[in-house]
């Protein structure tokens, strides 16, 4: 029983990293009804750029790595928007999808060529903190990731529901043409969404780097896959859904790994995804449809 509880809690806490990535996917989808396949890679790219800050400025305090990742993530988000959405007709869903797939591969290869694929040591926060309750333990660094993702969700919800920018974003999300008729500048809302999700991606990349302790190009593909699964299970466009689904997927895969082994783990995660697609295609928290 303790093993089950421990595996589930480890997974749920680690699932916070999936949730952070899922939030980015879902926000872009919510606003533009597009999938940004490069989001996971850009998040890892942000973490790499943050690490570069530390390497270039020897002696700088470690938290600057995280701040650097945050800013770099925003910059990459803007670049992804420019390269994959701004100059490509949005009426063609396949064009933007393929351009972001291309961007994913490009970012991946840039990382590989810059680092020769070598794993890079990444500073961890509260890595040595382990909360112990008898045999049961909780990792301090994962608790931090969990709290950060909850804070990000709260911040995003505040931004969406308490600011003019959020109002504009929601308006574009519900009815882009009507929003334009009301004077909302569509391009500005779109690029702002990408920068915000990019900043969030930078945090996600930094938190994942800190949780794993190492950065590697090997991170991009699994994060992209997990991010997409979380987005679908949580409900396309739902920020709270992405959080809950991230934690759910993290816990589920760890429990499956405990009982069925690592080689069957991803099989069951995919089955979970199919089950949602068949029985609850709107996901856990499908947002109410807009007036079209």
């Amino acid at each position, binding site marked *: 029983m303790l093993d089950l509880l421990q595996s589930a809690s480890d997974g749920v806490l680690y699932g916070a990293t999936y949730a952070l990535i899922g939030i980015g996917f879902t926000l872009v989808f919510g606003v533009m009804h597009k999938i940004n396949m490069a989001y996971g890679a850009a998040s890892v790219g942000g973490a790499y750029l943050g690490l570069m800050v530390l390497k270039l400025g020897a002696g700088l305090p470690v938290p600057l790595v995280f701040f650097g990742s945050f800013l770099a993530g925003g910059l990459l988000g803007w670049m992804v928007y420019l390269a994959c959405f701004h100059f490509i007709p949005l009426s063609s869903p396949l064009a933007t999808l393929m351009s972001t797939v291309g961007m994913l591969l490009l970012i991946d290869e840039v990382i590989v060529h810059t680092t020769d694929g*070598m794993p890079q*040591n990444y500073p961890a926060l509260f890595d*040595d903190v382990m909360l112990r309750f008898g045999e049961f333990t909780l990792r301090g660094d994962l608790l931090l990731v969990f709290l950060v993702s909850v804070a990000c969700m709260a911040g995003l919800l505040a931004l969406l529901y308490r600011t003019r920018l959020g109002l504009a974003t929601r308006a574009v999300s519900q009815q882009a043409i009507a929003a334009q008729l009301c004077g909302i500048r569509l391009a500005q809302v779109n690029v702002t969404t990408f920068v915000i999700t990019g900043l969030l991606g930078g945090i996600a990349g930094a938190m994942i780097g800190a949780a794993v*302790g190492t950065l590697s190009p*090997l991170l991009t593909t699994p994060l992209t896959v997990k991010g997409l699964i979380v987005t679908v299970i949580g409900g396309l466009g739902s920020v709270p859904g992405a959080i809950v689904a991230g934690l759910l997927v993290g816990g589920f895969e760890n429990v499956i790994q405990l009982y069925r082994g690592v080689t069957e783990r991803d099989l069951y995660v995919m089955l979970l995804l199919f089950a949602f697609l068949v029985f609850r295609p709107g996901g856990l928290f499908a947002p109410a449809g807009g007036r079209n």
Partner: protein
Amino acid sequence: MKKIALAIALAFAAGAASTAQAQEKSIRISGFGAKSGVVRSFGINGEAAMLAAADQINKAGGVKLADGSKARIVVDYYDDRCTAEEGISVIRRIAGTDSLVAVGPTCSNVAEPLFGILQKKVDDKGDSGLQMPVFTDVAIKVGLARISEWAFRNVPNEMTMYSSVFYWLRGKHPQAKTVYGGVEEDFAHSRATWHVVMKDRATANNYTLLGESKWLLNDTNFATQVREMKKANADVVAISAHPFTTCGVLKEMQRQGVKPKVLIGLTSSSSMETMQGCAKQAEGMIIPTSYAPVNKEAKAASDATAKFKGSADLHSMAAWENMFILKSVMEDMKISGAKAEVQADRRKIRDGLAKLRTTPGLLGVNSRTEDREADKPYLFVQAKGGQWVVIHNPL
């Protein structure tokens, strides 16, 4: 008029002679391996070692051909991206050029199917497989060269190396009696090394196997696996994984306070990648390797490779050795180097490689086995202060 004709003829003759001198002979050796993706460093280092070795051979006069003339070695290098389909495509492309021999690949999951498309047995007219000698420098999974008589390898024998490691540990740490394994289950080399080599060699040396934890190459969370490891409380933990997940597991072991008496790693992890990813956590890890800069030749090879922007490790230095072995084979077998006789020369190189019983190596003499594999001298290195330090020379 006759004088003018003679002058023209002389001018032509002189021109022809100088052209012949300018068109110096060359023979092509093609390297191939991963130059993109997460194992890119293997390809970079392998290519650098091949270029450095070719440079040294060319400066010393090149390769002596059957007619007594000399030819310089030209090296080209192809990226197989560590995928089987790309590797097969690359070897077919190489076979379509005037390249006499291929050196590669990096990954065992490429080598295995790639050797499968080579002709199984020489002179088998019913087998239309490729007739191209392949001399592997990196792909290390046990027993692959037996797939085709055109396949040769100069990779260390992990069976011998890990047998020696566990034997040595018995004397060095007599109190250590139990072993627990951690394996990267979806990578051909690491999987085979744990399941076929390490487990077998540990039990053969009277260690009790307490269990194993598995993870995948792309995994990032190792909490469950390390918890299993902690429960087993083994004296020796053997990790058969590549640097990224090795580092992930070592960091999780540190978090959960798992401190075995002895930590053993996979041959391929005795590189700077591990040091770059987790030097602190890898401290004390012991790995057998077929290369360390312990003598003049090994240091010189390392320096020469560095000039071509590569670093020396057990894999890249195998590529270095391969170049010198091939030079010697080409001279012994009296290849013509003529473009019209590429296939005949390839066959001569194959036969020459098959005849070898020993080859010179950077750490000493390498033995060649009947099934076209190598048995190379090796050392044990240990991670100390961010470096790999030689701790034992069993030979």
